[in-house]
């Protein structure tokens, strides 16, 4: 029997787990995929929003502002890359400047600090590639960019270090309450707990509706993105949003915290909660729409495209806390944008609700700090050579595009909640995330995974499940040994 079971190891599930791990409680996180950060948390804009967009008085507004304010400290504590570069929301029609002013007012009511409206002249000084039709922009200095993988992974690692259990490849089939005890049924086991936290992303409605009569409906809203090589880093210096118009919400163009440029997303409502396939129309539309914000986007430098699913609930707001008819079941549902920004605040909020209701005591030996995988390029030449002398694996480059060493990959696999697949290694170290998209490093990373996990090469996967990479020896493969 657990005290708390958390459904889903995305950024929200992991943030809640991390906050709850401050208390004396037996916590289990169940995840249907093979790793943390495998759903919506891995496929989004990587933006820390300032908070002007959400309507006054909504949970989105409140937790956006709170999350934004917390993000600096959280990222310091957990060693997550975060850069408060500021955002610009551009307006391309003089007639719409009043809308820009309305946004500013809404933001100020939400509590966003430092909002100003910049003229085209001012914009050109900071963003030389701004589109020809842009007339003005709302500048939000508190917005930033973050690594969504690292934030989720850091929450999870820290939760694990503080005693939280994680179980992957475990799909929850049924949740029910019997005599005040929650039962969570998976393919091969039935777990029990006093509390269930529903952080199941696009599936949060499914679990909520199993336990409550007040039904939710989450529509997976797909967004296509394109990602450009770091070689075009500095193309834009801020996150550039478009002022929503009658024609739609527009797309953003932003540097990522790692120096790539990302453009997207589209917004298409889907029936299938697994449909992360990009579409030709989506990619074309992202490129076309970006031209309003910036000119001469170097499309030839696109290194990949991907799609993510927003968990859009019919009510349009976050749903946080216990439904009236399901005490002990805590929803974190409808977490779409600004969910990533809000995650630290949601984690604290949900943990507080549970702590107060169940009078959890604080752990005396809670470890708040987490160190990320060492990035040798941040070291001086002398320090680096000392490291290589101590651990020669840091002298071997595995991913040449992103200069990732074997030492970093070993660390990614060996640390708590470690990587078990190529994508797991990629999200933790960036190996395979560069311009050749793992063409050169994947055979090498496969070999390291094989060795470290003590499995056969045919069992090494891209992202768990059926995603094996090779399926058999060649005819004379055995003699190649």
């Amino acid at each position, binding site marked *: 029997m657990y005290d708390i079971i958390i459904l889903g190891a995305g950024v929200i599930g992991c943030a809640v787990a991390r906050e709850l791990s401050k208390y004396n409680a037996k916590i289990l996180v169940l995840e249907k995929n093979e790793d943390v950060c495998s759903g919506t948390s891995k496929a989004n804009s990587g933006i820390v929003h300032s908070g002007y967009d959400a309507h006054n008085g909504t949970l989105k507004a409140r937790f956006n502002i709170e999350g934004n304010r917390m993000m600096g400290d959280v990222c310091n504590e957990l060693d997550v890359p975060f850069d408060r570069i500021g955002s610009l929301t551009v307006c391309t029609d003089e007639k719409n400047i009043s809308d820009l002013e309305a946004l500013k007012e809404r933001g100020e009511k939400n509590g966003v600090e430092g909002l100003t409206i910049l003229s085209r002249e001012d914009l050109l000084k900071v963003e030389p590639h701004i589109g020809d039709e842009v007339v003005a922009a709302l500048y939000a200095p508190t917005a930033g960019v973050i690594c969504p993988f690292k934030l989720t992974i850091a929450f999870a690692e820290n939760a694990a270090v503080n005693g939280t259990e994680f179980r992957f490849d475990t799909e929850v089939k049924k949740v029910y309450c019997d005599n005040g005890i929650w039962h969570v049924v998976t393919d091969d086991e039935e777990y029990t707990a006093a509390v269930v936290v529903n952080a199941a992303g696009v599936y949060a409605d499914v679990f909520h509706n199993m336990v409550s009569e007040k039904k939710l409906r989450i529509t997976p809203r797909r967004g296509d993105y394109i990602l450009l090589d770091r070689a075009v880093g500095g193309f834009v210096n801020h996150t550039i949003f478009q002022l929503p118009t009658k024609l739609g919400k527009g797309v953003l163009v932003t540097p990522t915290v790692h120096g790539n440029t990302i453009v997207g997303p589209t917004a298409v409502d889907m029936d299938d909660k697994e449909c992360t396939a990009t579409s030709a129309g989506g990619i074309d539309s992202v490129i076309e729409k970006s031209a309003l914000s910036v000119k001469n986007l170097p499309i030839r430098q696109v290194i990949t495209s991907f799609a993510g699913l927003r968990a859009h609930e019919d009510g349009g707001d976050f749903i946080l806390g216990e439904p009236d008819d399901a005490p002990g079941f805590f929803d974190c549902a409808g977490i779409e944008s600004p969910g990533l920004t809000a995650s630290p605040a949601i984690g604290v909020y949900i943990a507080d609700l549970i702590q107060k209701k169940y009078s959890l005591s604080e752990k005396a030996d809670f470890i708040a700090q987490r160190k990320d995988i060492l990035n040798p390029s941040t070291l001086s030449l002398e320090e680096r050579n000392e490291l290589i002398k101590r651990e020669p694996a840091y*002298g071997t480059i595995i991913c*040449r*595009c992103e200069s990732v060493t074997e030492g970093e990959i070993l660390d990614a696999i060996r640390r708590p909640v470690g990587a078990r697949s190529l994508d797991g290694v990629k999200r933790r170290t960036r190996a395979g995330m560069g311009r050749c998209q*793992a*063409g050169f490093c994947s055979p090498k990373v496969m070999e390291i995974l094989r060795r470290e996990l003590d499995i056969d090469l045919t069992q090494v996967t*891209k992202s768990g499940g*059926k995603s094996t990479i*090779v399926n058999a020896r060649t005819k004379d493969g055995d003699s190649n040994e």
Partner: protein
Amino acid sequence: MNKVDIVIVGGGPAGLAAAVAAYDDGAKSILILERDEQLGGILNQCIHNGFGLHTFKEELTGPEYADRFIRQVSERKIPFLLNTMVMEISPDRVVTAMNREDGMFQIKAKAVILAMGCRERPRGALNIPGYRPAGIFSAGTAQRLVNIEGYMPGKEVVILGSGDIGLIMARRMTLEGAKVKLVAELMPYSGGLKRNIVQCLDDFDIPLRLSHTVVDIEGKEHITAVTIAEVGADCKPIKGTEERYTCDTLLLSCGLIPENELSTAAGVALSPVTGGPVVNESLETNIEGVFACGNVLHVHDLVDFVSEEAAKAGVTASRFARGERSADSGREIAVKTEGGVRYTVPVTVRPDHVEENLTIRFRVGDVYKDSYVSVYFDDTRVRHQKKRILAPGEMEQVVILKKQLDEIPDLKTITVKIEP
């Protein structure tokens, strides 16, 4: 800091040939830096034959061809470091490299030869819509898995792109028992060598579908099927022409990109057409003392020409390192392209530095039948050679004699063009 006359970045066919030629020209202080665990570069995974017909007048496999040069390097006792990644090259030719044994170290070189080769264009750069499952490989990655690691990616294969590695892998996968269903090529012509189409596709009844591309990829975890469609003249898919093929493997052979991240960081200017450095007749880049050869300069289809080009870079680098410079009157001729010629290497020629002759290598942008390769000295046509076929997949060259250049002291422009 260690000092070396010539540092060669890359121990593949280009680096090896450059090293041997530099040594034979008299350079004795040479260091080859190779990132892989053995010399030979990509040739080590090219276990098919067809290498060396020009250089050795016999058909060798890739490893055999590499071995010929590796032997020459070891006979000359030219030093090399394996498993060593070059991290940075500075404009004043300080090379920073790293390996397990020596850590990170710097070498001051009199001359640097760039011989890093190229990489394959990945799926993401092709903007193919659909899922991003396992089972999608660039052809060279699959080649490494099959030929070096000894593992098969799958049993039912579709190949997008008819580059040479894709064609070679169509045959290789077939020989290993896989069913290669088709090769789809976006363009109305193949990007590979004619001989590879005959020997790797036709001989195995593998269909080549020109003007076709992949428009959808199915399978969330592992690829299960692709949809291909015919494309129009604008390379956009034509509705109603879609055909679905089940498969567990999709190989991509959609072009090679010279790997010039190190060069760019050193300040080397690149050609937007080739993606390789802009060089003069000595294969020297805009950064003095930095030379380039092989696939990092422009993508070749035959290794024999890589060796030939690299030998040239080896000699010119050796002379530069010795401080030997021919008297230079400052004359410089621009090499221009017209009518279907996409690029030339080199793009500038200083006649004072041309020895007996000058080889200009180039590629065309379309298929030309019964056309002429013409060379103009300013407005005068000096060469008009009939070619039965010219194709984008086959590199061409013209050779100009030094004395032709010397005959016209005020020559400004050499133009290479295709004429009907």
